[in-house]
């Protein structure tokens, strides 16, 4: 029965190809625009590490100025980053399954090929746990061991693009590259990795691409490198004291992540943080009330308002656009169906029930919806590529299976919205009138 209905629907659509093209184009356009912005919203609001986003926690401690809150508009919020000394203090704990302080630096890379000039590149300075904690995928080798954090040993992890640029691709584990004035040995080469939003550092842009290099955090001392991200400070320190004074200062510039697998672990870690801060209070630091926070990935996104307002606005506008396209279709379908009234009259007279006439026309609308939806998805993919190019974001937006389903879903809903009223009208026509006319 269903197959028959589809066959009738195809015949009906083929009878007037111009009109059918118009119908399909309208749905396609609406689906293209709305799917594109549903995708943009989905990417911004998505969970970049669904397997463990509720076990990864961002650590915050209120080490800010005793006289005033960190953010005047949100006085309850502790600072968004922590100091170097506090990172060192809490990294001594072994409660968390994995833990890593981190920041982004900009360092000079000297390619092994002599003819290539040195260049600057963003380097993530982090601890060994960064890789297993964030499930970073490797093509060759892997992260470095915890032993290499102490010392630190000159090992480095590079991404695929960097591997191509420096070594012409291939397994480069064990090869060396000069960074600043030190030779580093490649420990691992990443497989393509594009967490979106880039959850581990929302500060320097959640839409950013991960860094090309990863090296042990403690090279911060050797290179005396300052963050290429945000650094905020509320109290002066003795700048003549050199880099050590800076590291001991109240400047906040480090992001701290921990993996806590169980509720008990979380509680223990939270107690540890409290104890750490109370101890620091005794030393005359942390003049503000005790205010530690452990937010998991999605909570942290919400707190940081990672979804740009523009994405929400465009989502609303594009769905309304689809609605207008559907309303448009109502008129066209109504015209199309009503011109077919005599035919329907015959069918009804021959015993077709209202329900089957109704269903027949809904099937026809949904067929238009599905075909339009497929074209729309194609258009949508092109549209997203254009947006990617305009934003220069290395292909952040793209259609995946959930979004393709969403696009088809939108097309079906649009087809239904457009078809319900015309199908209802046509099935309620009295058959006799049209029979008489013939």
């Amino acid at each position, binding site marked *: 029965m269903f197959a028959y209905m589809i066959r009738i629907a195809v015949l009906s659509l083929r009878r007037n190809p111009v009109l059918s093209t*118009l119908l399909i184009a309208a749905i396609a356009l609406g689906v293209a625009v709305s799917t594109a912005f549903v995708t943009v919203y989905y990417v911004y609001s998505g969970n970049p590490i669904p397997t463990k986003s509720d076990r990864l926690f961002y650590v915050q401690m209120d080490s800010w100025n005793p006289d005033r809150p960190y953010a005047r508009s949100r006085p309850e919020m502790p600072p968004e980053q922590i100091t170097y000394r506090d990172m060192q203090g809490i990294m001594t704990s072994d409660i968390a399954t994995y833990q890593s302080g981190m920041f982004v630096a900009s360092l*000079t890379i000297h390619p092994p090929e002599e003819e290539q000039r040195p260049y600057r590149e963003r380097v993530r300075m982090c601890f060994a746990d960064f890789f297993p904690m964030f499930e970073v995928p490797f093509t060759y080798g892997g992260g470095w061991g915890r032993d290499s954090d102490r010392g630190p040993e000159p090992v480095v992890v590079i991404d695929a693009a960097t591997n191509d640029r420096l070594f012409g691709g291939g397994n480069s584990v064990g090869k060396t590259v000069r960074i600043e004035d030190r030779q580093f040995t490649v420990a691992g080469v990443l497989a393509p990795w594009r967490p979106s939003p880039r959850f581990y550092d929302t500060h320097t842009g959640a839409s950013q691409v991960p860094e090309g290099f990863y090296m042990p955090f403690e090279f911060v001392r050797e290179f005396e490198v300052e963050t290429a991200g945000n650094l905020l400070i509320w109290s002066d320190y003795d700048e003549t004291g050199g880099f050590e004074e800076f590291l001991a200062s109240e400047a906040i510039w480090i992001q701290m992540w921990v993996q806590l697998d169980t509720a008990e672990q979380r509680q223990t870690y939270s107690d540890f943080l409290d104890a750490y801060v109370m101890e620091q209070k005794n030393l005359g630091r942390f003049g503000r009330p005790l205010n530690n926070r452990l937010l998991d990935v999605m909570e942290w996104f919400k707190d940081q308002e990672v979804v*740009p*307002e523009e994405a*929400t606005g465009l989502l609303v*506008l594009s769905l309304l656009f689809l609605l*207008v396209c559907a309303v*448009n279709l109502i008129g066209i379908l*109504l015209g199309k169906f009503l011109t077919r009234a005599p035919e329907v009259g015959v069918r009804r007279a021959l015993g077709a029930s209202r329900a089957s006439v109704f269903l027949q026309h809904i099937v026809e609308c949904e067929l238009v919806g599905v075909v339009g939806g497929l074209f729309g998805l194609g258009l949508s993919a092109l549209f997203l590529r254009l947006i990617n190019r305009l*934003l220069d974001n290395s292909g952040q937006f793209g259609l995946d299976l959930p979004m393709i389903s969403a696009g088809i879903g939108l097309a079906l809903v649009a087809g239904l919205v457009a078809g319900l009223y015309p199908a209802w009208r046509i099935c309620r026509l009295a058959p006799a009138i049209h029979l008489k006319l013939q």
Partner: protein
Amino acid sequence: MELGPIFRALMHNPTRFWLITVEVALTLAIVVNCVAIILEQRELLTRPSGLDEPNLVVLTTRPFTDEFAEDGFIDTVREEDLRRLRALPGVRTAAAIDYLPLAGGGGLTGLAAPDDEGDGHPAPYFVVGLGAINTLGVELVAGRDHIEADLRPGDSEPENLIVTQALADRLYPDGDALGKSVVDPDTREVFGQIIGIIREMHNAWPRSSIAGLAMLRPGPVYDERELRYMVRTEPGALDAVFNQLEPTVLAVNADRIVTVRSLADYKRKYFDDEAVLVKVLTVLAILLIGVTSLGIIGLTSFSVTQRTREIGTRRALGATRSAVLRYFVIEIWVITGIGLALGAILTYALNYALAHLAGAPSIDWPLIAAGIVLLWGIGLLSALAPAFRATLVPPVVTTRSV
């Protein structure tokens, strides 16, 4: 006027009336909200920064040898860099600077007048070498530019600051900022003294509400990791000069990474999201108007076809062609009019929702009025072709096929 019959005829078959009404109302709401956002973003993109934007190029050099850390070496290199850059044909002037205006990253401190007990005001700053005012192309309206002696003040001397008028007015609302000192709002220690005021200059965050607050601090711009110069070219000479900049400084010392980018390029990158948003919304609005216009054409054509016999009867009873045309034009005018009236309400409702969800700008009535005029015109234009077709219906049609 035939409003009465037109309206009764409409109500006789209200489907088309409601469809066009709803469509026009939705379209008005969406288009006006799109345009409001576009206008707001364009205002951000195009507002004057006070800088000579089209003629500024940024040259960033990052040394990678140790000799730059040696005493005095970097000063020698910087002086030589600047001497050669300024001597290039097509270059008007050049100056050292630490961070960049319009590029989204830089220094920020708090400042207050000494007798202001409050939390102070944000003072985004740039550390600049000599000649910065001339190079940036900003206009000094009071006081003086930095001189050699300002670069290395003695221990007890305050830093000599040049601030924008907007920052000066925040610190000293009575307009007497020149020559006054400013303090750190936390420690209450003297930070510096205002020696010059520039009319207008955007800081590193031109998107923000404090874009106009900026301060120039004199300094040797001393960092062995990075030496950066702002180069101002003669009008129109930027492209010609651009490629000569890197070789010029590499000739002084080649042990560094050099990047050359126009300030306009940094600004473009900073405003990427806004620019894309403007493009996307423009496309959305145009597509929507197109779709709605097609919808009106379709519905009116259908209505003309349906009423062929009716029209023929009217013609047979003596109605002129222009009367038929007038009938359809007035009809569409009435329908879109009602749709637009509903649309005006819907526009405010959507605006309210968007303001909540997405921080959209609120809409002024002139914008809605403009939207109404536009869509009314488009509605009429869309209906014209089918209406003309109606006038071609011959009276004889009445006699056929019954």
